[in-house]
């Protein structure tokens, strides 16, 4: 598992939203006041406040009935434009997908993953672009054909037109998504062979926090770095006092599966010598620790099978001298894993120890978890489909908003650019802006390129350097603005990853950030579209 489901900081996100949204609004009002005063004097100044007041009046007086009638109109329009032809493409894809996806017969887990991946990708790649096109095209077309004249000359607020469009496309997209999702679910169930059906589950993991001890037994934040550029995992050295210590919280007997505590791990090995290859992996061991009771219960030695999940089922009642409890401690003593190892506050501490000298075992926070009773595959799958619904709604909101002030083709290109940047470059931008990634400005890079100057040499002092720094600062500020405004679409693709890997989609680490991200754009989109339509002459020649 290479993804780390970090719990969402709701309060932090809310504060961040308030800062960005509040400052954006403040800047917009100040700019409008200056422009209004310069162009129209006192009338322009008061007009800005009247405009702000208008928004609140309209938003508080919107009529659900009118919005619903515009919603129905939007749905009718799309249906009569033969939107449902999308199902033909969908059907064709599914008719032949089985031919291309069946292959890894020796790895049923991979086979299941590829089926789920295909279904979820096919749905999102069909639904989201279509809704993007519809959302960006409808309002400009309405304005171009002047059909909007017969609507705005009725007692319909312009914000209601925007809301009706957004809601109409959302409902239509939702219906398409439900049908496609259902077909996809049936298809997966039929496609996955009987022998691999057990893989269709939604595992519910409980993740802990991780700290390390070095070879002398002293606590450290990280383990060893073996030179891997990807420093996701830290390593512990075998046959020393180096340990990875996982601390799980909130564990109780309801987390048991068939009266067993189930631990699932996927550690990565780093070998300094070939070792005994016939064993099938490096030996390691868990030690269950309860310091309150001075209890250290080691598991039997385990073999770390790489590139697959290692499952350890620990019986609730265990003795030290049985295979699971063999090792340190008072032999023959029976303990209850939930009463004795898990402390009274529900904390469970598990130490991981590599048993082979000269070998290292790499691990990260999500590489070991307590597996609690599984949920049905449908539960995780439905949440993953919901994970397609959220970006779809966001794309619709952005598309309709942008189409309020530019023509259809420009709206499509703009929205598409935002979506692609949000999907692919958001983290890259964050890394540049936070200083995690060393990068000079675009103009400086271009200057160095054409003058064959290496990156270590300082730019010569003078007007050239001054201009380069000024322009690069402008570009960086623009990048900062984009980073603040463009939604992080990467959040949504995480949900698909959960289901592909057999997990239930985490509420705190995936669903909540997705919902909050989508919800955060509702108000800004409404404000931008309101003023775009309000300040626009719908009949400018």
């Amino acid at each position: 598992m290479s993804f780390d489901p970090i719990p969402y900081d709701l309060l932090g996100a809310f504060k961040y939203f308030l800062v960005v949204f509040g400052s954006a609004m403040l800047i917009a009002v100040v700019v409008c006041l200056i422009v209004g005063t310069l162009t129209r004097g006192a009338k322009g100044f008061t007009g800005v406040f009247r405009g702000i007041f208008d928004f609140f009046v309209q938003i508080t007086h919107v009529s659900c009935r009118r919005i619903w009638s515009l919603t129905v109109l939007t749905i009718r329009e799309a249906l009569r434009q033969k939107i449902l032809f999308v199902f033909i493409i969908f059907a064709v894809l599914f008719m032949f997908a089985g031919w291309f996806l069946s292959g890894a017969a020796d790895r049923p887990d991979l086979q299941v993953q590829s089926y789920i991946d295909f279904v979820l990708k096919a749905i999102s790649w069909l639904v989201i672009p279509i809704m993007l096109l519809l959302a960006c095209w409808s309002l400009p077309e309405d304005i171009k054909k002047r059909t909007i004249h017969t609507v705005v000359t009725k007692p319909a607020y312009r914000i209601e037109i925007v809301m009706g469009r957004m809601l109409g496309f959302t409902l239509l997209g939702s219906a398409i998504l439900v049908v496609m999702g259902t077909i996809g679910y049936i298809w997966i169930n039929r496609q996955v062979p009987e022998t691999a059906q057990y893989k269709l589950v939604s595992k519910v993991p409980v993740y802990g926090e991780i700290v390390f001890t070095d070879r002398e037994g002293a606590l450290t934040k990280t383990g060893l770095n073996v030179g891997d550029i990807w420093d996701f995992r830290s390593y512990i050295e075998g046959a020393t006092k180096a340990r990875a210590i996982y601390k799980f919280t909130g564990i109780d007997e309801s987390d048991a599966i068939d009266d067993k505590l189930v631990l699932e791990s996927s550690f990565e090995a780093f070998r300094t010598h070939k070792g005994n290859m016939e064993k099938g992996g490096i030996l390691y061991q868990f030690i269950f620790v309860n310091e309150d009771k001075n209890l250290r219960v080691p598991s039997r030695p385990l073999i770390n099978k790489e590139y697959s999940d290692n499952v350890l089922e620990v019986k609730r009642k265990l003795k030290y001298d049985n295979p699971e409890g063999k090792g340190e401690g008072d032999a023959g003593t029976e303990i209850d894993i939930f009463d004795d190892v898990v402390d009274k506050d529900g904390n469970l501490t598990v130490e991981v120890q590599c048993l082979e000298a000269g070998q290292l075992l790499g691990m990260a926070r999500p590489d070991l978890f307590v597996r609690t009773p599984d949920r049905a595959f449908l539960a995780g799958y439905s949440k993953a489909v919901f994970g397609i619904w959220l970006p779809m709604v966001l794309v619709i909101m952005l598309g309709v908003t942008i189409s309020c002030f530019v023509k259809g083709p420009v709206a499509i290109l703009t929205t598409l650019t935002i979506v692609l940047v949000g999907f692919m470059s958001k983290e890259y931008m964050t890394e540049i802006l936070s200083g995690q990634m060393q990068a000079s400005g675009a103009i400086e890079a271009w200057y160095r390129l054409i003058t064959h100057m290496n990156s270590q040499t300082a730019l010569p002092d003078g007007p050239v350097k001054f201009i380069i720094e000024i322009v690069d600062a402008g570009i960086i500020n623009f990048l900062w603005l984009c980073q603040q405004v463009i939604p992080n679409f990467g959040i949504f693709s995480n949900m698909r990853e959960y289901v592909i890997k057999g997990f239930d989609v985490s509420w705190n680490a995936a669903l909540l950030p997705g919902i909050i991200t989508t919800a955060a754009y509702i108000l800004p989109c409404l404000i931008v579209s309101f003023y775009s339509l309000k300040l626009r002459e719908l009949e400018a020649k």
Partner: protein
Amino acid sequence: MDNEPVIQISNLTKIYRDFWGRKKVRALNSLSLEIKKGEIFGLLGPNGSGKTTTLKLLLGLLFPSEGDIKVLGQPASNVEKNERIGYLPEESYLYRFLNAEETLDFYGRLFKMPAKERRERAAELIEKVGLGHAKRRQLKEYSKGMTRRIGLAQALINNPDLVMLDEPTSGLDPLGTDDMKRMILELKEQGKTVLMCSHLLADVQDVCDRIAILYGGELKVMGRVEDLLKEQDETQIMTSRLSDEAIKEIEQVVAKHNGKVGTIDHPTATLESLFLKTVQESKDRPGQRFVPDTEEKKASE
């Protein structure tokens, strides 16, 4: 007719500007007029004179560059005023994928009309504009005349106090034109105010109480139709058909009173009235050829 002003325009100027804010066209220049409750007011002028611009400024589709507009006592930008307004655009900008019933239902919903009232009103209007036979056909299958009719129906869905009609008879055949004029007069009878733009002068003359003629965005003439058209220095007497002797005697009487006879002729009907008569006869006596009242017909009789 009431003296209460329904539309008040004062010093209205509209300048169209390009992307950079440079002046392109001065479409209206200091237009001031007032339209009273219950009258049919015609806005006339050649193409590009500013008729439609005026209408769109009144509806809030355009923003005035200068001047003030009050419609039903409220600023043009006020959405609430639209509760009492019906608007038929120059070309019926309607959703072509809807049928007549769906169209009226949609617009009725925008007025928050209850479902029952909406259905009844839609059925009544569809019959009134003569589209009962095509109410389930999508508008994209309609002829231009049919589209104008459903356009008028949507303008009347809310039973408005003020109806703004932009070129209401454009694209209509004489029958449709006649129906449209009849419906406009009916609106007046119901106490509604009608503002119509047209360059079909005969239509305006038939229905309007007052007119204003615009040219180059400026108001050139405004007043009551009969006042503006009345020839103050001439007298017209219409009688039944007279013999040549009788005509000579009349000429003598006129001369005796220092008058001068201009023309003496048999009045001709308009082509429109002949057309309407032919259609009506064809309806009443299907299969028979209609023979108009010509000299030849009278001679043969």
